[in-house]
């Protein structure tokens, strides 16, 4: 079923039903009805360091989360809520997120603290932190960390509104760095240097880098080949690229 086949009133009714029944069939119809919208948003971030397939996959997962978390009783339009969620997830994917949506104060404060701790630790540890890492870092209970994380539906899109083609406003640092590595691997970067950097990686990381940039496979295809989830591939790629970059600038 496509978006055009459902009227706004029908979508509203379906959201109310889904909110009560949590039926997967209703969920699937709602996701299907908004898939074009999700792709439209995702397409604004094309030509960065991920393939369109991967970008659409992130947008799809974010849309599923948005449908799950949307409360039809709060008066907001779903597309407004989902748009923020999708952009937030894409932005988070590029590791550059902050708040933009109002949430209950205590939850927001907790989330802000947890998110800040998460970002600080990600930089310090050079990996995504665990719940225990964050709890220790912030000196709060592990349950509070989980509560803070649970409020993650709404990330800001503050600097995300610029399009991928907007050369006056370059992508965030990390993204720019990744993009630069991506586009340069083929040509201008000294192949000997790249090969030596690749040898500094573990077997699995090297394989993933080669599959992504030499064989030009999408993260989804790599995931199937390596036997891990697509999101896991995304993290491994990011870490491997950072490791290579660190070697280069050492």
């Amino acid at each position, binding site marked *: 079923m496509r978006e055009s086949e459902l009227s706004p009133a029908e979508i509203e009714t379906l959201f109310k039903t889904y909110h009560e029944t949590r039926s997967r069939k209703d969920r699937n119809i709602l996701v299907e009805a908004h898939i074009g919208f999700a792709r439209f948003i995702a397409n604004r971030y094309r030509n960065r360091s991920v393939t369109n397939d991967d970008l659409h996959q992130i947008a799809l*997962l974010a849309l599923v989360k948005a449908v799950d978390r949307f409360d039809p009783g709060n008066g907001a339009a779903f597309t407004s809520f989902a748009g923020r969620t999708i952009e937030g997830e894409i932005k988070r994917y590029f590791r550059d997120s902050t708040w933009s949506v109002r949430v209950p104060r205590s939850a927001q404060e907790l989330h802000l603290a947890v998110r800040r701790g998460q970002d600080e630790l990600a930089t310090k540890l050079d990996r995504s932190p665990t719940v225990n890492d964050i709890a220790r870092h912030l000196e709060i209970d592990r349950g509070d960390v989980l509560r803070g994380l649970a409020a993650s539906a709404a990330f800001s899109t503050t600097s995300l509104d610029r399009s991928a083609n907007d050369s006056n406003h370059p992508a965030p640092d990390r993204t720019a760095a990744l993009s630069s590595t991506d586009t340069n691997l083929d040509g201008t970067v000294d192949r000997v240097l790249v090969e030596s950097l690749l040898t500094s990686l573990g077997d699995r990381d090297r394989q993933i880098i080669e599959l992504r940039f030499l064989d030009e496979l999408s993260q989804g295809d790599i995931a199937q080949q390596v036997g891990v989830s697509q999101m896991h591939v995304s993290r491994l790629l990011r870490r491997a690229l950072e490791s290579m970059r660190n070697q280069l600038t050492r």
Partner: protein
Amino acid sequence: MTDRITLELPALTRYISTVRLAAVGIAAELDFDTDAIEELRMGANELIALAIEAAEADGVERVQVTFLVEAGSIEIMCIFNPASPDAGVQIDPLAEQILHAVADDFSVEGSTIRLLKRRTNARV
């Protein structure tokens, strides 16, 4: 060593969150990173929702959920029709796409739907 945790639940959608919560709690105990926990949460949600839907279709009132917990991974098995191990279930394309994205492996064998999630820093 594998720790085995089993839940038996009424096949009602209101208990989906119970399974999600259990999955997240176990993952936190295993020191999964926060991204992997969020992915496991989505995967567990999809798995138990599929199982409950299949149980309803078969007229089954209770589903079993087993977590097989190892140092670097969690496997979740949902049995939606314990009395008929060969009963199958059709996974729709959206559920398949979600599970492919968030799980390191998933499969359907008869009335058992499985999902495997490894800790990001565990070796594959």
